Structures are given as C-alpha cells and as structure tokens.
C-alpha cells in the first residue's frame, strides 16, 4: 500500500482552460480521501491525472515515493472504478475481473482464487458466468469494484462510482465501500459531488472549486471550521444560511442586515476578531440547525428572537425544515418534529448568536 502526493499539480487544456490549479494533496498510506466539489471544479481531472489518463501540465505526482508523472497507467499499480462502470460488454463477469490479472500473466489457479475471493466479498458468486448486460446497476457496480480489488493495487481510485445508482442502493453501496476500505486497509481516493458521501466516507476531505483546492480537513473540522463561505455553504445539508449586513458598535457589536430586518447583538466572544470590521459590510452565516423553535428549547441568553413568515414547511419525519426569507435572502431552519407549523403563518424563531459564522465580503474568507 502507498502514499499519494500531489505537489503543485496543474492541468491546462489546449486553449488555456485551467482545469486544476496548483493542487497540493497528501494522501497517507491506508487513508480514505474524498475529493468533492460542484461539477467543473477539477476533481475528476485531478483523479484522472493520478490515474495517468490525463497528462500533468506542471507539478509532480508521487505514488509510493516514486515520481510517476510520465509513467503509463498500467505501470502505476492503481485500480479505478468508473462512474459508468466501464465493464467490458463482450466478457463475462469472471473474465472482466480476471482481465487485469491475465494481462499481468498471473497463473490460472491464482486468478481463480482471487476472483472467487472477490466474488465472495461482493456477493457476485452466482453471476460469474453472466455478461454485464444481464446484471442490474448495483451488480454491475460491484463487478467494477471487484475488478479493482482482485488486482490488489497500491491505490484505489473511485470516480463518482455511485452517481448512477438509485438513492437506496447508493446508501447501501456507500457502506459497502467503507467496509471494503476497513477490510482491505488500502489507500483510496474517491471523487464525488455529493457532500453526504464525502462526509460519511472520508477520513479526509478535499474541497475544490474552479480548479482550486479550498480546504483539506477532516469531515467534522470542515463542518465546524470552514475556511471560507464556499466551504461553509457546500458542507452540511440543508446548507448554511447567509445574509449580508454591517456591524455597528455602540458598546457591544450589533449585526444589522442590509434592509434592517435582522438585528443581532453579538456575544462578547466575537469582539476580538470582529472589532476591525466595525461599520463595514460582511456576510453572516448560520446553520439551519442553529435556528430554533422556541417551543423545543429552553431559553438562553444567546438566543435572539426573530419574527418570520413561513413560506414552505417540509416535514421530514424526524424533523421539519422551515423556509422563510429575511431581506429577500432565503433561510431554512431545521427543527425537531413536534407539531407542524402551517406554511403562510407568522412564527417566532430563535437565532443562536453563539454559533454564528462571519465571512469577509471581498475575499469570502472566514473571519470567525
């Protein structure tokens, strides 16, 4: 098993389009790293550069301490699972899984042993003689995974492997891949646009946007300490609420939204970091779970009451999402499902002022 290190890796396409810029990622041995970001952020390009399917325009790529910029994919000792499975349609499941081993001139007994092992782990034993077209989506995906694991490669690469599956199967395969990671103790790099997949699977998450790495951290750190507004908005579901406003200082700091519909007097804890922003504009962010229903929490000095008009109410079973607007900005609050408020009615809610995030208007970087 092996480490993967990207040093200042950049990919520029013909015509000057930069797909990935100055990427620095260190994937430790046996680590599960997830590359996540919206489409077009360069995550797949980065993965394909690691696989050797895209040339690296500049920078260095190391697998197992060996520079592999110019090594062909077959000599990098990696395996990849593709979004569309990429199974060979003219071969049976067995032949699909054995293909890589045959090319590497493994003897027949060894091939059979490894394929049977993989088929057992992945519940594919009854299907070994079938062609891919006779399999369901989930089974095909498992064959693609099986084809990767029989090779026992140094690094596993996954390119949005679950996005073609239905929601239920996706959750099931997600846990199966996580289990596989624990079982194989292999280095895995996983690309997805789904933040839930990223949060639940990754030891470490790399968040990318427009070809640039925004933050590399553990799932919880990303959630609690995002480095900028993009990361704050991308991680968490429903995503963080944002509203622009100014800070006023008369005694203690007060945040006032642009149109004045939201006034929050801030906790002393923020003063050090926010003093220099007095009378300046900035973004306030608050997660949906930090806006409460007064009926479900006991009062606290940190809470500020706000009256809103509920626009949409979405009961999820164990919780309810409340949608409302302040200053024209859409807000969502996530409250426990006790009683369902009616859409179109006025409601009093509580902002937890000890859990606010602030971002610089120009740079969008986190202030606190």
């Amino acid at each position, binding site marked *: 098993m092996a480490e993967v290190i990207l040093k200042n890796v950049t990919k520029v396409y013909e015509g000057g389009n930069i797909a990935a810029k100055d990427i620095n990622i260190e994937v430790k041995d046996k680590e599960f790293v997830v590359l996540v970001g919206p489409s077009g952020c360069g995550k797949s390009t980065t993965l394909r550069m690691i696989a050797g*399917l895209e040339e690296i325009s500049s920078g260095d790529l190391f697998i197992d301490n060996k520079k592999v910029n110019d090594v062909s*994919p077959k000599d990098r000792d990696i395996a990849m699972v593709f979004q569309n499975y990429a199974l060979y*349609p003219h071969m049976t499941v067995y032949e699909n899984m054995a293909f890589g081993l045959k*090319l590497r001139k493994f003897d027949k007994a060894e091939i059979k042993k490894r394929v049977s092992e993989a088929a057992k782990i992945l519940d594919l034993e009854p299907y070994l003689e079938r062609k891919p077209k006779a399999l369901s989506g989930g089974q095909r995906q498992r064959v693609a995974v099986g084809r990767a694991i029989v*090779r026992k490669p140094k690094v596993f690469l996954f390119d949005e492997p679950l996005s073609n599956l239905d929601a239920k199967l996706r959750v099931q395969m997600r846990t199966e891949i996580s289990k596989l990671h624990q079982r194989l103790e292999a280095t895995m790099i996983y690309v997805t646009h789904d933040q839930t997949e990223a949060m639940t699977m990754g030891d470490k998450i790399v968040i990318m946007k427009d070809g640039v790495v925004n933050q590399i951290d553990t799932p919880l750190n990303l959630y609690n300490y995002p480095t900028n507004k993009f990361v704050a908005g991308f991680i968490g579901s429903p995503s963080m609420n944002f509203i622009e406003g100014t800070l006023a200082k008369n005694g203690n700091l007060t945040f006032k939204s642009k149109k004045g519909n939201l006034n929050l007097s801030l906790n002393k804890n923020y003063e050090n970091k926010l003093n220099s922003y007095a009378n300046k504009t900035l973004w306030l962010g608050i997660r949906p779970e930090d806006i409460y229903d007064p009926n479900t929490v006991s009062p606290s000095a940190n809470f500020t009451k706000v009256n809103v008009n509920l626009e949409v109410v979405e009961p999820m079973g164990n919780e309810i999402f409340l949608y409302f607007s302040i200053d024209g900005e859409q807000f969502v609050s996530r409250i426990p499902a006790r009683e369902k408020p009616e859409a179109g009615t006025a409601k009093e809610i509580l902002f937890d002022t000890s859990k606010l995030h602030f971002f610089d208007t120009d740079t969008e970087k986190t202030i606190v």
Partner: protein
Amino acid sequence: MNKKKFLANFLTYIFLIVFTVIALYPIINVFTISIRPDDRLLSTSLSIIPEGATFKQYIELFTNRPFLLWVWNSAIVSFVVTVTGVALASTAGYALSRFQFIGKQVSMLGLLTTQMFPATMLLLPMYIMLIKLQLINSYLGIIIVYSATALPFCVWQMKGYYDTIPFSLEESARIDGCTKWQSFYKIILPLAAPALVITALFSFMTAWSEYIVAAQVLQDTDLYTLPLGLKSFQSNLTTEWGLYAAAALVVSIPVVILFIILSKWLVSGLTLGSVKG
C-alpha cells in the same frame, strides 16, 4: 377488431408477395435461360423449367471455359481488398475517432470529398497513374484501385461506430494493464464486430462484381476477373446467353452465402452504425 387485423395482415402479405415476385422474377428468368437447350435460347415461352432442360451450359462452363481461373482471380482480388479494407479502415477509423492530431478535420473531409465524384470520372486519372506506376495489367494495380474506392466509406463508417463506444472502456483497459494497442484489439475491436462485418462485406462487394475499372486495368485474359470473363461470352456477332446466365448464377452464390451468414450482424450493424450504440 379481428376482421380489421385480418385485412391488415392480408394486405401486408399481398404487398410482400408482389415485391418478392418482382425481386425473384429476373433471377428465375436467368435460371430458366441457363437450362434451356441451345436451339431455344430466345424462346418466348414463360415456363420456368423449359422443354428439354439441360445442365449442358454449366458443364461447358466448368470444363471447356477458363471459368475456374476467373473465379480464382476474383477470389484473390476480393480477398486481398477485403483484408486491406478491414485492416486499414479499422485502424484509420480508430485514429480519427480517438486521437487529436493536426490535419484530422482535413483528412476526414478529404475522404468524404472523394465520394462525391462518379467512378467513371476517376477512370482516366487512375488509368494514367497505374501506367506511370507500371501497375497496369496486374493484380496489385486493380487491388489498389478497389481498396482506394472502398476505403473512404469504410473509414467513415468505422469511425462512426467507434464514436459510440465509451472512452472509459479503453481507459479502464489501460489501467487494467493494456497498452494502447492492446486496449484497441482486445476491447474495442471485438465490440466493433458489427461495423467490421459491414466493412468486410462492402469491400468484398466492391471487388467481386466490379466491371468498368477491371476492363480498363486488366487486359491479359489470364488475369480476367469474373465480370470480365462473363463479358467475354459476348462477341460482336453473337452472345452465348446460356453460358452467360449459368455463370451469372454461379457467381452470385458466394455473395448470397456471405449475406446469409453475416445477416445477423448486418441488420444490427446497419442500425448500430448509423444511429447510436
């Protein structure tokens, strides 16, 4: 409802029968002529098996005429043209489908442009070129001309088919341990079988039944291909219609067999190549 269905079926069958008769009539006629005795060649009788039917013409064809030599010549030429066509079209089509290189667009348009000229217009330049290359009156000369005529269509149709095969299959093969060449012949080529069959048939047909070019290029009677040989039954004063008809039927047999064997591929190939995999 049932009555309506019956009527629809009835009309469909009538339609199919009429067109089958139209398609089969000339062939039956040729067969009839081939088994008529010598003195009744131009008879106006409509009976399919004529009075005094005989296989004399067939025996004559195989024993007293160089028919087998012509079959041999045609077979060699068609075989080489087919192999060349499949080998070059499968690789050229792949390059045009998968790789980016300078002149790609121009070469594709160039190939297409050659299809716009009627074959007869190309006769003279091809003739002059073959003379200059001293390839006139040789297998090689005619093979080059046939291949050149068949290739543009074949290359385009192979390219079109490769375009429907996802890139990720080759990428996956390369990660599995294939070189670029291996991923082509182990993965892509087997998947392109329907298109290869069409290419092979098209190349074969181009060479097997072609007359005009052969008449220009081949002058030595020992090199005659089937169409030229058949034409030699026709002289200034008489035409040996019986022999002609017998030969025509024999010539069409390999083509019919080929089509029957490959028909499974042909139908799916034709639709797959044109629409989408």
